[in-house]
């Protein structure tokens, strides 16, 4: 006996940022939507990633801030037996509030939620297995795959989630270790490394590249490494890989490195990338396959090789950010429904929540040069800004990339506290086609970090003038 599947206009698999936005977009135009989630509503972002890590970060930044601003008078010591969870007191409340908000949003939009694991039976039919093993079928005219990613577990690294951890388990440590080795120097590795460093842990970052965060402007990365290494006992070891990792059975995790060094620490964080969640989806039943990196290949509208199936978020690979995942979800859905797509892909900022923060939007000098665009760079150092001095956030810099011909803002790179908020001013300037002069003419509050834009713009304008002068 075969049961005929329940029919929906749209079936979304995965309720992370990418899936949510796709589901809401479809529901807003009156489509009947089914959202399937195997775990808790909200995805990795809410439960293992962004929200918990940012809650811990907030505490670390506050403690570090008090140390710099008043440490001579108010001693800030973290007792060794302090539970790591106590530094994330707000986490449970924040996660609950967010899940409740999401849940209301889904209900308000009439989105049908199903709790279970989804897999393709045919290109249009998806089977949902409940946690108790019951099975149900749904049929979608359009299907969105938004199943996210999980930490990669490289061969030969015995992750036990007790001493050798990954980015999912690191935040469940009982207490602060004294020392930590971090394998990998991507965004998540650097975020964790600097958060723990700010909490007083001696952190060693090991990566096979000569510098961390290889996709960023070199001068920004150099400053970042210098800031990281100013924490006591913290070092970045580049051009080296771990050849073996093992707990010595007593008191240390030992990583033997390709450069002959040995890194010993209380705990080790393995942050060597993430893999797409595709196993168990039975992609082949939908006629789909993954590429060499294990991601689902898609076109600019996130459409897969099956015309009615789209893939969005971490499952299609970098940049693997919550913000881009949301935009992909919305964009794919609009494409599927034949709605207009206002594309602003090059004005999506990236935020890296290291301590200090890093944010970028648009192009840097090298990327502009590669495009053949002549540009000038205006720079502001945070120690030149009154607010930077007041807040003791002098460890920062803002680069404004300006088209030498049109005077338009092409990009911005910021390192320093508040970078992830500050970057949006450049983003707005870019998307409205504003000229660099608007930052000079505009009046900002004083004292604020936003003044860095004025300082950088003045620098850029001065450079433009001297160029014109020399050209003449």
């Amino acid at each position, binding site marked *: 006996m075969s049961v005929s599947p329940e029919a929906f206009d749209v079936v979304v698999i995965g309720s992370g940022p990418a899936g949510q936005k796709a589901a809401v977009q479809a529901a807003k135009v009156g489509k009947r939507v089914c959202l399937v989630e*195997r*775990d*808790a509503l909200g995805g990795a972002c809410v439960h*293992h990633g962004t929200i918990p890590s940012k809650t811990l970060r907030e505490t670390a930044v506050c403690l570090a801030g008090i140390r710099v601003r008043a440490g001579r008078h108010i001693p800030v010591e973290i007792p*060794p*037996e302090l*539970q790591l969870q106590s530094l994330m007191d707000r986490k*449970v409340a924040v996660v609950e509030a967010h899940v409740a908000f999401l849940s209301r949003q889904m209900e308000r939009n009439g989105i049908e939620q199903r*709790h279970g*694991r989804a897999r393709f039976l045919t290109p249009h039919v998806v089977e949902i*297995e409940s*946690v*108790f*093993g019951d099975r149900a079928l749904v049929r979608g005219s359009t299907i969105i795959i938004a199943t996210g990613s999980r930490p990669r577990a490289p061969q030969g690294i015995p992750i*036990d*989630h*007790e001493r050798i951890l*990954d980015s*999912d*388990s690191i935040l*469940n*440590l*009982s*207490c*602060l*270790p*004294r020392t930590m080795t971090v394998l990998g120097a991507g965004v998540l590795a650097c975020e964790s490394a600097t958060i723990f460093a700010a909490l007083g842990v001696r952190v060693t970052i090991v990566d096979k590249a000569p510098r961390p965060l290889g996709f960023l402007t070199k001068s920004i990365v150099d400053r970042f490494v210098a800031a990281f290494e100013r924490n006591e006992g913290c070092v970045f070891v580049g051009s080296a890989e771990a050849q073996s990792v093992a*707990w010595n*059975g*007593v*008191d240390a995790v030992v990583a033997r490195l390709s450069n002959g060094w040995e890194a010993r620490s*209380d705990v080790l964080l393995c942050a060597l990338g993430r893999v797409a969640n595709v196993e168990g989806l039975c992609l082949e039943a939908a006629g789909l396959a993954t590429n060499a990196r294990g991601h689902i290949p898609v076109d600019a509208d996130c459409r897969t090789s099956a015309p009615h199936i789209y893939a969005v978020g971490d499952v299609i690979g970098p940049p693997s950010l919550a913000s881009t995942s949301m935009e992909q979800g919305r964009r794919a859905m609009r494409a599927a429904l034949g709605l207009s797509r206002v594309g602003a892909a090059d004005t999506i900022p990236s935020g890296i929540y290291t301590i200090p923060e890093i944010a970028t939007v648009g192009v840097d000098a090298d990327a502009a040069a590669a495009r053949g665009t002549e540009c000038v760079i205006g720079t502001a150092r945070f120690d030149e800004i009154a607010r930077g001095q007041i807040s003791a956030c002098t460890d920062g810099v803002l680069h404004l990339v300006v088209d030498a011909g049109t005077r338009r803002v092409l990009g911005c790179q910021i390192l320093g506290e508040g970078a992830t908020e500050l970057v949006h001013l450049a983003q707005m300037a870019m998307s409205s086609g504003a000229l660099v002069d608007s930052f000079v003419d505009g009046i900002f509050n004083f004292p604020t970090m936003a003044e860095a834009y004025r300082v950088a713009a003045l620098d850029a304008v001065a450079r433009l003038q001297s160029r014109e002068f020399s050209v003449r």
Partner: protein
Amino acid sequence: MPVATQQELDTLVARRLDEGLLELPMLPSAMTQTLALCQSESVDAQTLSAAIHRDPTLAANVLKAANSAAFGLSSPCASLQQAVARLGLARVAELALALCVRGTVFSDPSCRDALAQLWRHAALAACTAREIARALRRNVETAFLCGLLHDVGKAVLLTNLQRDLGQGSVELPELAGVLHARHESAGARLAAAWKLPDPVAVAVAFHHEPERATVHAPFAAIACLADLLAHLVDAEEGAELLADAVRRHPAVAMLNVYPDQLQSLFVLATKARAAAECLA
């Protein structure tokens, strides 16, 4: 002939619980210290072995457990320091903690057999909870404590009842009903008196209905699942019925454990037996 009817037993227990007459064992100082050490990264072999040596019986038992075959050491350890060097600090601290609990709560000679039976279950649940936590990326040490202490209320009630009724008057099967009904509240009293970490206290109080826990619910659910799996591993008869009950249990849904994953957890629970036997 039973000395007391179920009704009378219930009245006795209710009186103890409701009138504040429940006798709770004192938190041993060796346990306070070991608990603190377990939660601190800055502990070394010497500090730990010194803490354990404060209680010579405990020290001897830890060494015995460390040497027990299941740990697979080729030659026996002669000292605690050596045990630490071979098993690692965390494992030895955990052993010490477990044996401390056994010595304090599970060792009243007047009901030794019944307590020993409860203890075997506690040890297996602890080792099972640890593996569940590892699989679900939760804190492993906290889960161990949740499993170890989930039924501590039963031991407390048993010891109290024994005082009311006199030695050897009742057997575990006759008490099962009343112990089951009241052990979560008795355990919660002990957890409060001993100031156990919050997730552990929640697991002790809510391990039969983890969905009622308002905070730390995942640890209540882990204790619940560990309890069920430990019973399943030990069940000689009725394993099928129990297995069905586990498959449909709300804890399984709370932790999002799918049938195939549940099967793997069951295998891990079977393997945890060896580790649990060292504590027994």
